[in-house]
């Protein structure tokens, strides 16, 4: 770097309108790019937060999610008696046999119907899903048509507020409590007494079982034993992985679509940067000639203008990332295609996303600045000096 960098940024500052418009253009693209990555990551983060490290989820073999799964009563008793399972204060195994169904609720925002997970939970559930805490109201009473509702569902759906009521299976169910679950997918669910639910939906069996392990390192042994047991036909997964897998369809779709759009989109901004850099060079031909007379070489000129373009795009990158990070204050919700149900989540920033976004910006700067920089470097000294 022979030509000092302050030469470049002062020049950028000297042409405020052009620089500003170009930075904004690149910023817009980076905003979309990092917004998309933050969206995909937000979904994943929410689902990963749902599973605990020391829990195992048991579902019927090949059923992919709880929705398609069921576990019969004899299977339940075999699973409950496994030695790896931790015990609660009452000495009973920490096993949550849960019913998982979807109900349709209407959104407050636009009245659209969306699928919401209704989970029938038992006494052990609150211990197994240890992140779940009531923040308003009280726990439902066993044997009564009462519900507790996740925070996100309570905010988003009609009838799901404390004191409200939700109708399904020929009955009105009263909302008696609101719970929080560490920004996990549980916050998008509705919970009630599993026995009440089984009766209401005329279901003989639960959908899935979640086991708390006394020692998480024993997971593999448990998995092998259960999956090989001829009386069972189940898949055993670490709860964290089970939920993380549910982010696959959505996040890969968003990432592919988002990156394709950003790349196409980036052409506009790259061309904007190119126009700006060509103009900068045309306007500064005489300066370029002067620098060459002073003894700067072509490659000094090339790198200087490339640096200028990178500075320009980096500024755009920073603008884009800063604005995108404001998105993380917003919670949004969508149907997760893997589970078919509504999931509320936030945009989530990670250092990687910031780094990718800035790299993307720099790439735009290099692509947009390269040809103009080459033109600057190839200028003939005499022609450059004669320019106005």
């Amino acid at each position: 770097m022979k030509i000092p960098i302050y030469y470049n940024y002062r020049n950028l500052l000297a042409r405020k309108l052009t620089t500003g418009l170009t930075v904004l253009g690149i910023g817009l693209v980076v905003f979309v790019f990092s917004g998309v990555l933050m969206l995909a990551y937000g979904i994943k983060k929410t689902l990963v937060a749902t599973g605990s490290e020391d829990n195992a989820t048991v579902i019927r073999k090949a059923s992919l999610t709880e929705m398609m799964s069921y576990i019969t009563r004899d299977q339940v008793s075999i699973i409950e008696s496994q030695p790896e399972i931790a015990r609660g204060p009452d000495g009973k195994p920490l096993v949550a046999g849960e019913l998982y169904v979807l109900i349709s609720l209407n959104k407050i925002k636009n009245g659209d119907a969306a699928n919401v997970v209704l989970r029938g939970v038992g006494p052990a559930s609150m211990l197994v899903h240890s992140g779940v805490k009531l923040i308003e109201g009280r726990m439902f009473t066993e044997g009564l048509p009462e519900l507790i509702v996740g925070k996100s569902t309570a905010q988003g759906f009609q009838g799901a507020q404390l004191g409200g009521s939700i109708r399904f299976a020929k009955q009105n169910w009263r909302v008696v409590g609101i719970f929080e679950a560490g920004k996990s997918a549980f916050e998008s669910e509705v919970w009630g007494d599993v026995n009440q639910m089984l009766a209401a939906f005329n279901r003989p069996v639960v959908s899935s079982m979640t086991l708390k392990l006394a020692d998480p390192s024993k997971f593999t042994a448990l998995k092998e034993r259960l999956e090989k047991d001829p009386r069972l036909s189940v898949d055993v997964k670490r709860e964290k992985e089970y939920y993380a897998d549910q982010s696959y369809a959505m996040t890969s779709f968003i990432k592919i679509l988002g990156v394709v759009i950003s790349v196409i989109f980036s052409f506009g901004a790259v061309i904007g940067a190119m126009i700006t850099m060509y103009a900068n060079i045309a306007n500064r031909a005489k300066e370029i000639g002067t620098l060459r007379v002073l003894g700067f070489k072509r490659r000094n000129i090339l790198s200087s203008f490339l640096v200028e373009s990178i500075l320009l795009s980096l500024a755009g990158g920073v603008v884009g990332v800063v604005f995108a990070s404001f998105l993380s204050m917003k919670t949004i919700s969508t149907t997760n295609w893997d589970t078919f149900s509504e999931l509320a989540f936030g945009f989530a920033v990670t250092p990687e996303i910031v780094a990718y976004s800035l790299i993307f910006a720099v790439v735009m700067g290099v692509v947009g600045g390269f040809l103009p920089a080459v033109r600057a470097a190839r200028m003939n000294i005499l022609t450059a000096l004669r320019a106005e």
Partner: protein
Amino acid sequence: MKILKLAIKNAGRHKLRTGLTIVGLAVAVMAFGLIRTVIDAWYAGAEASAPDRLVSRNAVNIIFPLPLSYKEQILKVPGVEKVSYAHWFGAYYTDPKQFFANFAVDHHTYFDLFPEVIVDSQTLANFRSQRNAAVVGQILADRFGWKPGDQVRLIGTIYPGDWDLVIAGIYHGRDKTTDESALMLRWDYLDETLRATVPVRAGYVGWYISKISSPAEAVRISAAIDSMFKNSLAETLTQTEKQFQLSFIAMSGTIITALRIISYLIIGILLLVLTNTMGMSARERISEYAVMKTLGFKPFHLVQLIADESLFISLSGGILGILLTFPMASGFGEAMKYYFPVFETKPQDLLVAGIFALCVGILASMFPILKATRVSIVDGLRSIG
């Protein structure tokens, strides 16, 4: 007219810059068209729906089934001409991540209700004569390399086990909007298997489709069907096919909204790039504008000169972008065809893109116009580049 000529000459003064601007605008217009096409693709199912078909599903949620016995009762409702049913099967072929739609249908009636699904008589005969037969769409057949007569093994998720099916034939869509990526197997085959293995799950269907005498009767007939099952264990919700499809699309509402926002941001890029170019030209020509004023040109001549140049560039970019959208959309559609079975750019999207380009052309000339009309002759002549 003379002014227009001068404007176009002006645009040609910095050929590289003007060219880049046009290309930049074209790419942005194309990206806009592409995103709009993606959004349309979501709605393709709803667009393809017939106004004279109603869908009845379990009121609690589509995942809950309805008893088979409802068929006869629905048929009794005045105005209902035919009834068929289908059931979501949800199986996969070799890889659970390669999603495709597959459902069990009533082999007697299903294709009668969907005239847009074209099944030749041989296929239909095969389908009706063999219990484990399946009809597949052309796109799906191409994707997995299936041919009529092939044995294929699907792995059940909702209904566990391996399901060995025989491809009875391939269906084609009558319209461009018809989905050609689904598989239909026989409901009675599913039901029989369930009866033998999990009898409690047998005897249910996912949803009923009714053909009605007239679309105008849809509201009345829907209400009649739903009231018939009120307070039963399985209450129904009956909607037109379009509403039914739209309720699925609503599930992706957030993504669609995000795409819409992005498409407007693209218009923003358009505006930024063109404003930049026009701003540069204005800055460079400020002294020329002053000269023109001295020569007696009126401010509105300058307005016209600048606006014409801006519009010339924006419309060139717009038209080029619209032309580019077609090959781009077909390439993109090809790459995403398993996500979007129907991927077609609509003329109205392009029209919208063109109108936006026009507006951008006008907006981008505002700042230079202000600058040019305000410049006093003295200042203008003094300024250099």
